[in-house]
């Protein structure tokens, strides 16, 4: 594990190295270098198995965190590469040329987070949603409960009482 991290550190400017387990580490890389980094990891370090790509919405900081988890099936270790991109006009370089399946992940991210991946095949096609016209639903500022209540007619007639308030009212 350390060898791989050392190797990466030599070539790339990575920070926030967190070792979660013996076989799982998280590293952060800047946006422009990320694809180069995972290309290097795939081609030279044996991280041939692509585990997942997903995003985390840090709305407080105005950032999306993209996480690429790569796995080295021979050494049996995982390294997760994080990169921060701006929430405004979020865009990231596509990695579909490294693994074909990444195109699917990118399609989903584009739909659910609104992160664009130019050049990724079929990235603008509907993937999960159909006829969606609100903000992308996985963004933190989308309130699913409010949306559901406004849209899907919850069955009326329910009311509840807070025990504390109710008792104060009854007992005072």
């Amino acid at each position, binding site marked *: 594990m350390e060898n791989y991290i050392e190797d990466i550190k030599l070539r790339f400017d990575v920070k926030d190295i967190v070792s979660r387990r013996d076989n799982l580490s998280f590293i952060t890389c800047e946006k422009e270098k990320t694809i180069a980094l995972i290309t290097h990891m795939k081609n030279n370090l044996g991280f041939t198995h692509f585990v997942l790509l997903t995003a985390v919405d840090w709305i407080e900081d105005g950032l999306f965190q993209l996480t690429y988890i790569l796995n080295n099936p021979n050494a049996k270790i995982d390294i997760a590469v994080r990169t921060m991109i701006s929430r405004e006009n979020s865009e990231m370089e596509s990695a579909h040329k490294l693994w074909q399946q990444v195109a699917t992940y990118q399609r989903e991210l584009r739909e659910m987070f609104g992160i664009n991946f130019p050049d990724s095949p079929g990235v603008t096609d509907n993937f999960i949603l159909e006829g969606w016209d609100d903000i992308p639903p996985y963004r933190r500022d989308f309130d699913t409960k409010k949306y559901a209540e406004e849209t899907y007619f919850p069955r009326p*007639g329910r009311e509840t009482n807070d025990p504390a308030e109710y008792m104060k009212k009854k007992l005072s």
Partner: protein
Amino acid sequence: MAIRDILTPFTAWKKVFREPVTVKDPLNDRPGAERYRGFHKNDLTACIGCGSCEAICENEAIDLVPVEGIETKSGDSGLRPLVDYGRCCWCALCVDVCTTGSLNLTNEYTWVTEDPEDFRFIPGAENKPWDKLEAGWKKPEPNYEFYSLKREAMEELHPGDRDKSFIEIVKGYSKEQAEAEADRCVECGICIATCPANMGIPEYIKAVRNDDIEEGFKILYETNPLPEICGRICTHKCETVCSVGHRGEPLSIRWLKRYIADQVESSEYKRILGTDGIENNGKKVAVIGSGPAGLSAAHYLSLMGYKITIYEQYAHAGGMMRYGIPEYRLPYDQIDKDVNYILSLGVDIHYNTQIGKDISLADLKEKYDAVFAGTGLHLGRSTRIPGTEHENVYQAIDLLNKITDGKEIHVAEKIVVIGGGNVAMDITRSLTRLQNQKYGKVQMIATALESEKSLPADVEEVVEAREEMAIVNPGWGPKSIEIKDGKITGLHVVKCLSIFDEEGRFNPQFDENNTNFFEADMIVESIGQGMDISYISGDIKDSLKFDPRGRVTVNEYFQSDAPWLFIGGDIIQGPDVIHGIANGHKAAYGIDNFLNQNK
């Protein structure tokens, strides 16, 4: 090879001669398994409507609704869970979290209807076919809890270390302990209504949990201006109704309150509470007595901008809290911490000024816009059995008073204390300390009418008294004091069978054949206190009404029939700090209303 591949599949045909494995009558033959998570049932009498089930339900499937026949009372919200099977997912988290264990799932699973509105019901209240079923999901045992049932142990002085001194026994929680204890709270809020002051208990516990002491401190002061004091000696009625206490030990709400108050330096008070620069509205209110009620009223009134003057008959503020409660339970510097903050809000205090003697009530009426009287119960009651007039028969309250003032008191070798309340325990334990200091041994018997189970004193008080080598021997009614040669030799007692008659009146029954004799050369009576409201006299007294027990009749804001006079605290509600605080708070609103009406 190919031929074999053609023929072997036909071996499947041998199954045609077997009896089919089908369940003959699937609707009746197959009850759910012993642990099956089927439909809800609820034991309505055990349920207290705490709402933990509602809190943990991820689908908002549970509502709390009033149920006919279930009264709201202290410790029982009177609400019961209503389950919406249009939401439920039968995860049984509600069962596992249930504080009383009343909610269970049965192994019934078939419910079919044409009307979707049917699927809402109150388990237990509506007769459902599965209410009687025994099998079904119950909370797994043992050692399976969603919150710890065990209290964080509070560190205390070892009995051997404490029985000679008046150093505070309870050490208080550390940060970790407090957070762990606060973590046990299920935030049901059952305690709030039981607390006379309606303190926001779950909120300040939450503040402890979040390590947000300032927030917690603010919450405390919303309803209680004496947190240091209450955090030590409150009768914590909240803990008796705590929903966690149904299956385990209730939360140490009192200690958590103390923890918050202990964390805040007195210099920080004003900053945190934001009470700098309160605008004076020019009106003046007099407060008689600096007990909890008086201090509470003074605090909230001065926050409203009134100019407050307190008249205190003794040399220090605090009233019964200082003069009735021994220092090992409530150190005087902690009283001073709370009192000084209140005084720092611009409250004047006149010590050693007794109303009726140094200044009359009528004068106060002239000088101030309103008067709040919280004079408390400072007169000891006597058992009036033969021999009580002896000089070595004392009133507990007088002794405590003297101990507080640091005066020398008579401590005999053998002492009997009559009474089973907290005051009795206080004097018992104070005297054991003094005995220990004086004689190096303890010969102390505390006896009471009430039986062991119904002793009015707090359990821990009794336990600690016993740890300090005092004998607590309840269940005896005092008969007479034996005096030989002008000296007390002991107390004759007779077994008490019951205290109250069927109608609930005080009417003790004794078993005359079962008597006992406690040796003593000093007897302390502690069977309750009376009030001294002799300062209310003349016209003022005539304008007031009194109830049969001699208490002044007041409205809900503690306003007497003389509108300018508000009366609260022990003299209205009986001896209890937190009631006094609540009275003072409420009276403050009453006074505010009254004075604003006059405007």
